């Protein structure tokens, strides 16, 4: 069933811009990105949109639909009333480039500051052994498609530009968690997570988890466990005492602090 959809799209660049109204024909089963593509092909040939796979797998078409961070390719029109006006803006945490395209270099800068996996030597037969239960937690975090919606919604940087310098953001906290839970990794990154990445800036208000299109439990499974691991290292007198008298968590043996 085709109908005319009312769209308000933010058009502009760093020097300014505003919401502009359009009407575009859409049909059953379509998503917001389809509507914008039709707009682009028929009315606004130069409307800037960043997109790739249109299947929710690459995380390129992040934007805000009616004020909520979403992937445009996974936002179905059937979630709205046909007479409703849908407002689409670029992500509001990152500098705008043009129209719906933002400069997400913040995330790539943070990625460069991140530690990497550092595994010990392979087994004698040239292979590695890890049990499925030991890799499952990390696998959840590696589902991340880097759409940066969690970074966009996180009020620590969304509402405070100055925090961008010292705060890596949820996407990279899950990377820290992934590495810290890796059964063969040899580094201890708790200090880095707390100091360089600014884990303490997070006040666990969970918006990152709410917007994650992959359904990763960012707060419960990554950020809070990382905070608890930092507590192990720094704020737990029992652990400290244990270390003093030689009772240690053997599970962490062979890891070096970086």
């Amino acid at each position, binding site marked *: 069933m085709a109908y005319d959809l009312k769209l308000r799209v933010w058009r502009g660049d760093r020097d300014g811009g505003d919401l502009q109204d359009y009407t575009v024909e859409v049909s059953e089963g379509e*998503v917001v990105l389809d509507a914008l593509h039709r707009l682009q092909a028929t009315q606004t*040939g130069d409307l800037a949109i960043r997109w*790739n796979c249109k299947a929710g*797998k690459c995380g390129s078409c992040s934007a805000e639909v009616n004020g909520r961070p979403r992937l445009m390719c996974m936002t179905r029109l059937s979630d709205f009333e046909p007479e409703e006006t849908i407002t689409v803006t670029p992500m509001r945490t990152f500098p705008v480039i043009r129209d719906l395209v933002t400069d997400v270099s913040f995330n790539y800068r943070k990625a460069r500051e991140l530690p990497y*996996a550092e595994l010990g030597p392979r087994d004698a037969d040239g292979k590695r052994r890890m049990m499925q239960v030991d890799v499952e937690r990390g696998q959840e975090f590696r589902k991340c498609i880097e759409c940066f919606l969690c970074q966009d919604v996180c009020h620590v940087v969304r509402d405070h530009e100055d925090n961008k310098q010292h705060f890596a953001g949820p996407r990279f906290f899950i990377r820290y968690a992934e590495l810290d839970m890796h059964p063969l990794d040899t580094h201890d990154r708790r200090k880095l997570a707390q100091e360089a990445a600014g884990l303490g800036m997070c006040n666990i208000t969970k918006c990152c988890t709410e917007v994650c299109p992959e359904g990763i439990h960012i707060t419960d499974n990554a950020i809070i466990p990382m905070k608890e691991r930092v507590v192990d290292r720094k704020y737990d007198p029992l652990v400290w005492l244990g270390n003093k008298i030689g009772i240690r968590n053997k599970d962490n043996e062979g890891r070096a602090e970086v």
Partner: protein
Amino acid sequence: MTDTRHPMTGNEMSYYAEGGIERHRYDVVVVGAGGAGLRAAIAAHEAGAETAIVCKSLLGKAHTVMAEGGIAAAMGNRWLEDNWEVHFRDTMRGGKMLNHWRMAQLHAQEAPERVLELEDWGALFDRTEDGLISQRDFGGHKYARLAHVGDRTGLEMIRTLQQRAVQVGIDVFMECTVTDLLKDDAGALSGVFGYWRETGRFVTIEAPAVVLATGGIGKSFKVTSNSWEYTGDGHALALRAGASLINMEFVQFHPTGMVWPPSVKGLLVTESVRGDGGVLKNSEGKRFMFDYIPDFFRAETADTEEEADRWYDDKKNNRRPPELLPRDEVARAINSEIKAGRGSPHGGIYLDIASRRDPDFIRKRLPSMYHQFKELADVDITQEPMEIGPTCHYVMGGIEVDPDTELSSVTGLYAVGECSGGMHGSNRLGGNSLSDLLVFGRRAGEAAAAYVAGLAQRPAVTDESVRAGEWSALTPFQVEGGDNPYTIQQELQQTMNDLVGIIRTAEELTQALVRIEELKERAQRMSVEGHRQYNPGWHLALDLRNMLVVSESIAKAALARRESRGGHTRDDYPKTDPEWGTKNLVVRLDDAGTGVTLAEQPLPEMPDDLLRHFQ
């Protein structure tokens, strides 16, 4: 602009500028940041070359993320009997013996080590009970061989390689499109010319070695599993630089793409659904694949449902289900069923795993598929069958390269991954593309670095070549009142879909060539609105030139090959012809530079010690 660092990448933007064009200098430039490009860049960097990656999208968004099933590598973790020779044999047979034997050999031999390398760099594959990398069944592979992570293996691979590339410090030019390859007067490659998508500013990168890793051509077809980036850039760049393309008539239609809703038509449904027990049924509820077993595979395919079902648990004493025949066979069978009127309401057929596996198993093994159908089609695949149909997925054809170094016929120009040709013959087996990217990516990176290290003098970038690149990129802005590029693209996609699709005839192919000529004419007079800053209309206009020349290559080669084999099916020549099995078709740019010419070329001869696998 006073800021000299590029806002997206932090790259220095005005290394030095001549004629207002930003210039950089590297030893090796890799075009494309998918699996092949990243692996090539890592290899070149590790071999000591100053390396840069140029890619049309953001880093980590390349089409490799869409790969679902796994990486084929004979590691023998599930089946000790598996080794590179079995993998080699499967690959050659899957490609109907048209593969370059040497590429298939290197691929089978080196894939296991390339997979283990990913694990060293942090990839977390699914595990066997013993803690080794798990391997799953796939069409055309004799043993369970695909290293995988659920059904998002491509994502795991690209993220691992991306993190590795960032770790070692490779420069990445993101959202930057290469429009021309530059050559010196002696015909050696000297660099690339392109533009930043974001600003529209031009950029020249001087480099004696360029590795093309631009992927495929799927966007020339209407129904495709490929993303917008797949416009055949590497194919076209290489052609224009004087290199040749091989096997262009072979385009793989994946048997299972979504058919509904219309906005996602063509979106891939992984072969793992069948590997994990899913079956194909027509509207009468019949499991029809048993009617389509070709003689070539009869000996190793189950002919009763009972045997096929037993195979999942007991592979030694049973033969494979026909649903797991190579993709070309399955796609043709589905096509025939739909044509015979036994299709589903939305013009597909049914892929059913709901009635065969319990919901937990499905959700665990196929999380992305579950999510994809739930979110996009409102279908719960643990309860209902999926509606699917063939979708343009992969081009076997590509730039003709030397198997050991991936060097094309142009000095300094290398090609890897989907944009290179030869490895997969007339049909690619599932899982062989991810391993292809890794094996040949590394080889190309090392060869390119070695070539540059051995150079006494670097080929020079001439001013004329840069000016020519600039002039041709700006042409679409100089025309007013011409065709809209979106319109031409849509017509091309429709033409390719209708006339150069899964089943071909001489008449339709001839007609397609006429239409492509018309579209080429109209593309000369395209016009775009707006300015150069992040202008998708302009970007499309430039990509469209590539799509047109690639489409012409496919149609011409398809018309010439008067037989059916692998990804090329001729209704007027339905049989495989042994005579055609001895030669490849090679495409080059014609003398005028406006079209392509075709030549036959004998297949490279396989040495006897490999030949024995097929006797």
